[in-house]
């Protein structure tokens, strides 16, 4: 039993490593193994080195960070809200990030500020601020209501208002600003430089560490509210802690890579199926490892389907994630 678990972990790590190597070789130009190795390890500057180090490497790092975060975030939200289909999108946190970006990209153009001066980092900051604002609202509501269903309904309503506001902004926005916003909503790992990837990594790592300290609390929450209080645990406090770590995870992905749907719901379920357990001590590392592989695979597919350009991440994540989610619904209703 114990050995089997270790084998699956090793298999997941090997898959992730293999996929990152494949991802290095994936892109619009093909390089040989020798060229790639030279670019990675030699001192000489070349155009190949520039592509690999400045473009592909940050992209892979971003995919790994996003992958490690997305499944873990979904797992925590599913346990917190006792809902197998919960994730940051349902709670409105992603819409909050979207609204932040919309206000930033489109709103600012009203004041005649030119686009060229604004960097990705500005967009990311706006997204994080939006996600944090919605989380504050959810935190406040979750302090008022213990009932998880009401909080979910509030999340959906907040999403609705957020989407409506975004639509209004889009209606009034000038074309270039609209284009920037729409591109962000499609999701992408590219276009990040190494500094941005590091910022994203630090935020996500904080979220991951917090999640690991949540393992015991997540297990206890499985047993229901009364049982948690009966264990002498301050339920409101642990709920807040879980919400904060989920927001850090969701916020950092959405801010830098755009909203990525469906994988956050699907990955935890795949892990529960593979490991046949509901214990978060197994599921937390499992969702991190499986998420990395899933995200790298998504990135590879998004780049290798067409000869020209990249398919949006959100398209591929929907094609990979939705069948799994439908399977879960069918299985749960049997």
């Amino acid at each position, binding site marked *: 039993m114990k050995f089997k678990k270790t084998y699956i972990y090793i298999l997941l790590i090997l898959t992730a490593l293999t996929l990152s190597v494949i991802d290095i070789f994936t892109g619009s130009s093909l390089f040989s193994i020798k060229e790639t190795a030279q670019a990675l390890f030699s001192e000489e500057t070349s155009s190949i080195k520039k592509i690999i180090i400045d473009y592909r490497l940050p992209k892979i790092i971003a995919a790994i960070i996003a992958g490690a975060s997305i499944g873990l975030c979904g797992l925590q939200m599913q346990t917190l809200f006792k809902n197998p289909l919960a994730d940051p999108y349902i709670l409105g946190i992603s819409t909050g990030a979207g609204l932040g970006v919309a206000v930033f990209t489109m709103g600012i153009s009203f004041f005649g500020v030119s686009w060229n001066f604004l960097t990705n980092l500005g967009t990311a900051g706006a997204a994080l601020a939006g996600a944090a604002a919605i989380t504050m609202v959810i935190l406040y509501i979750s302090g008022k209501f213990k009932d998880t269903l009401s909080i979910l309904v509030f999340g959906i309503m907040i999403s609705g208002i957020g989407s409506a506001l975004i639509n209004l902004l889009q209606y009034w926005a000038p074309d270039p600003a609209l284009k920037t916003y729409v591109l962000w909503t499609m999701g992408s790992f590219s276009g990040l430089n190494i500094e941005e990837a590091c910022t994203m990594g630090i935020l996500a790592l904080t979220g991951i560490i917090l999640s690991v300290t949540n393992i015991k609390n997540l297990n206890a929450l499985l*047993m229901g509210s009364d049982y948690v209080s009966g264990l002498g645990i*301050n339920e409101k406090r642990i709920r807040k802690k879980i919400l904060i770590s989920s927001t850090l995870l969701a916020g950092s992905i959405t801010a830098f890579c755009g909203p990525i749907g469906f994988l956050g719901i699907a990955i935890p379920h795949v892990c529960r199926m593979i490991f046949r357990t509901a214990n978060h001590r197994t599921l937390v590392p499992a969702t991190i490892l499986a998420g990395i592989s899933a995200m790298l695979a998504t990135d590879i597919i998004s780049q290798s389907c067409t000869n020209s350009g990249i398919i949006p991440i959100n398209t591929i994540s929907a094609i990979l994630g939705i069948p799994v989610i439908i399977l879960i619904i069918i299985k749960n209703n049997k």
Partner: protein
Amino acid sequence: MTQEHAIELKGLCIGYAGTEIYGNITAHADKGEMICLIGANGKGKSTLLKTIAGLQNKISGEILLNGKDDSFFNKKERSTLISFLPPRFPRIPNLKVMDIMGINCYHKSNWIGQIKDSEKKAITEALGMTGLAGFENRDSSKLSDGELQRCMIAGSLVKDSEIIIFDEPTAFLDISNKFHISYLLKKLAYEKNKCIIFSSHDLQVSMDVSDRIWIMGNAGFTEGSPYEVLEGNKLNGIFSDSRIRYDKDKNKFVYNNGI
């Protein structure tokens, strides 16, 4: 010197959010004793049990635990002293019996919830005691209702609490399991010297196994041994409907429909 009771309630008044739902409860419970709480629906049985366990705030009155006012206990101490078990447990697919035992070791396990060998020994013992020996790796969601209740009782043994409060442990069980679970609790009261309080609507079984009955009656709180309760006709005061009487000879409630 008078002996300290495991639980002593003095003029306790219970309720939700400042609104009283039942007042003036005075009673006590000792270790090694099995107490059944009965009362009509909505009288506040669950509220009383949760208030004693510290899951809910009292309105007024006193709760003494082992002779000390309950304000002396913090959440962790109180949860170690008292195990509160709700009537029904969620069925989580793939959650193993061992995982549930691990959750009950919340304060004894390390930061990621791993347990020590001494706790593992206690778990094996608790599972043996509740008739679940060898169930460690079973999927808890696939246990029968009776087995799941046993599993939860085993959890309270793992916590090693002196007091076990069980809200309607037998509500969803068939008659044979009602007896099995009730006598298992009685065994724990006697052999492990636990103080056990459980609520029930099942008088037939409760009168059999309990040492004392607490009644949240229509006119007020009263208590006594099953014999005193029967001879004193105390069960008649449970319901406001005067057509319901407790028939001592038949040992059951009868309904006079006026025919």
